[in-house]
């Protein structure tokens, strides 16, 4: 995932710095717009050959055309479904195993070593093996997404639980909270920032796995759309597919950050009240 986000300022700031921040945001849009304009003119004037890289406006037109006849929507839905199912399976597994390993010593001993070993395998390199195991159908794609999502979420769940300040758990104990209450009031909220980070990384890995998975033997999905277009040298559709993947990544990240900002209001106390 190569999304570079403006660094969140955790420092509670008064009015003037906020103004400066807004100005910086505006300034950050200049260079991307400039690149788009350059690209457009280069394509229009023939500096870049149309069949190598079509102009952004052409890509947008193609997108509009495919969206209107429903092609884009159908394929997008197929891709989203794969991503969602894979993310759900991999994510749930990561949360459960990460929590067990983080909370229980026995769980740590049993679960963490094999996971640490498996982490060293680049999961995308498992494609040949997965094809032998589960075939080239839908289950291969979903397994790949689930694998991609599992590791970042597992490690961040584990680390989030392990990093909780033991003194806070102790304080909760002196307040008479039993184990489950301590998990609910101390461990879970304490691990939440880490869980969010894990989820963001997991979603990024899920998109990546989806891209790779959809390039082998598919009849639908954004990846199929791109592979089919390549055979007919429809460069605009290929670039459109890239745009869609990028847009999906950007959108999911944005949604998650909004959710994170709301849930973790306590970290920016002064601004939230």
């Amino acid at each position, binding site marked *: 995932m190569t999304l570079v986000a403006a660094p969140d300022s955790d420092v509670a700031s008064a009015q003037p710095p906020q103004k400066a921040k807004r100005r910086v945001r505006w300034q950050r849009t200049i260079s991307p717009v400039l690149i788009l304009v350059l690209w457009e003119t280069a394509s229009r004037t023939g500096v870049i050959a149309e069949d190598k890289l079509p102009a952004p406006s052409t890509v947008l037109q193609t997108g509009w055309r495919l969206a209107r006849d429903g092609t884009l929507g159908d394929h997008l839905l197929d891709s989203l479904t794969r991503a969602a199912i894979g993310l759900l399976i991999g994510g749930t597994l990561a949360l459960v195993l990460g929590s067990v390993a983080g909370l229980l010593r026995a769980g740590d001993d049993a679960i963490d070593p094999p996971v640490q070993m498996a982490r060293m395998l680049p999961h995308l390199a498992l494609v040949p093996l997965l094809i032998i195991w589960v075939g080239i159908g839908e289950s291969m794609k979903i397994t790949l997404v689930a694998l991609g999502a599992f590791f970042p979420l597992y490690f961040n769940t584990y680390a989030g639980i392990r990093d909780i300040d033991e003194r806070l758990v102790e304080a*909760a104990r002196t*307040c008479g*909270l039993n184990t489950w209450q301590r998990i609910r*009031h101390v461990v879970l909220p304490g691990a939440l920032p880490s869980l969010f980070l894990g989820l963001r990384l997991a979603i990024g890995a899920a998109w990546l796995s989806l891209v790779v998975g959809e390039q082998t033997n598919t009849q639908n999905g954004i990846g199929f759309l791109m592979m089919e277009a390549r055979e007919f040298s429809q460069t605009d559709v290929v670039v459109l597919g890239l745009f869609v993947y990028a847009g999906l990544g950007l959108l999911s990240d944005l949604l998650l950050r909004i959710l994170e900002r709301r849930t973790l209001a306590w970290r920016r106390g002064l601004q939230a009240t």
Partner: protein
Amino acid sequence: MAPRTASDLVVRARGVRRAFGPVTVLDGADLDIARGEVVALLGGSGSGKSTLLRILAGLDPAASGDFTVPAQHAVVFQEHRLLPWKRVIDNVGLGVDDRTRCTDALAEVGLADRARAWPIELSGGQAQRVAFARALAREPSVLLLDEPFGALDALTRLRMQQLFGRLRARHGFAALLVTHDVEEALLLADRALVLDRGVIAADLPVELEHPRAPDAPGFGVLRRRLLDLLGVPSAA
């Protein structure tokens, strides 16, 4: 020390032992706290005074010995230890069902208007007051205080000590005050204990009139005695 019957005691500990590896920190310490009595526990750095308090608070399962501490006890640590993800009032209400008790406790430490604030928004002194409110809301018969004013600046510490005096006068709880500050012990406690080599080496009644001040008659003498017991030679 005047003889007391067992029913007068809220805390009773006999032969408390705790070793960290080869180092024996507590070697059979005995401790009694009567109903409503404030006992200061002094000792050099590493003498085990915090260890003893943690044992009494039920936070150290590796300790041995006989001790009874009422279920209605509360602990205030040197750091406030508020949960940063809970608003002030929810921190006070941790494990307490009765909400009015929490708002009352918060009002008693003078922070009723900060109930909806996040802990990150509080100053060090305010956060420590919330920690006291959290303890008060459990209506404890004994408070276990582990250097509760140690991390505060001098002025805030004085105000907190006065607040502690007022709360104690109103609620009549007993308290074990672990401190390294001889003046603090003499200002607040009815009795001062000195922990040395794993046992209670000295038990000094502090019979001074309230309100106390470091320039009151008799204060200096007791101060000198306690410093002697702690092994601090006089400057002259």
